[in-house]
């Protein structure tokens, strides 16, 4: 019911997206590289369309799984580099090693 009313309120500027358009823009959407207005229209389509919703879910899970593979950076490397950066900024490091 809610989505029916939402559909009535739609203007041409936020007309519904087709499955084809969603297919073209899905990856940008998942990477947060899509502008806000198209993101909203795309997510409205995903709510209504089971096929596109599943497609999005698949790629979302792939992305999530890849993000979990992110290796921890070596903590002592990071600490040394932060220290080094601070000394550089203070002019305490020679620029020609």
């Amino acid at each position, binding site marked *: 019911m809610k989505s029916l009313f939402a559909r009535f309120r739609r203007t041409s500027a936020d007309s519904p997206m087709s499955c084809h358009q969603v297919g073209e823009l899905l990856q940008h959407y998942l*990477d947060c590289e899509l502008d806000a207005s198209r993101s909203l229209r795309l997510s409205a389509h995903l709510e209504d369309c089971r096929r596109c919703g*599943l497609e999005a879910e698949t*790629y979302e899970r792939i992305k999530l799984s890849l*993000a*979990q593979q*992110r*290796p921890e950076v070596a903590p002592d*490397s990071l600490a040394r580099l932060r220290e080094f*950066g601070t000394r550089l900024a203070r002019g305490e*490091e020679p620029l020609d090693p």
Partner: protein
Amino acid sequence: MPEIEVLLRVARSLTRNDADAEDLVQDTLIRAYKAIDRFDGRHPRAWLLTILRNTHINRNRRRRPELLRDPGGATRHMDEVVSDEVTDASVEASFDAEIEKALGELDEPFRRVIELVDVDGLSYAEAAEVLNVPTGTVMSRLHRGRGRIRDRLDRAGLAPRSH
């Protein structure tokens, strides 16, 4: 400087070695401070990533010229026998394992982009800086690479289905 962690992460992806990654970031910071007068103050992360990429290329040329000629990663895992059997382990674990395998088997250009965007968390524009390719190339490699991972999940029966 909050960018140091991102730099170290990307350096680790480029060098695949903690010690080399630390050296690379240190050189990058030195070059950045030398060039700071030429920095326009916008997008510091992208600017630093560009310097990181150039530093990385110079270091490789100097130290290991053979690496630039060797296609390397493209042939990795060629001898690995692919088993599409779903094991007794939980579906979640085999999903992650399958994705890790699929990533390892991608051709180098696709794997690199996916590592930078999905694993290291860079934007398209930042990945384009690191790889020195147009943003459009990042997008098309990313999308094709993910498509291949997805195909593999399908074959393993691990992609979500409607029934």
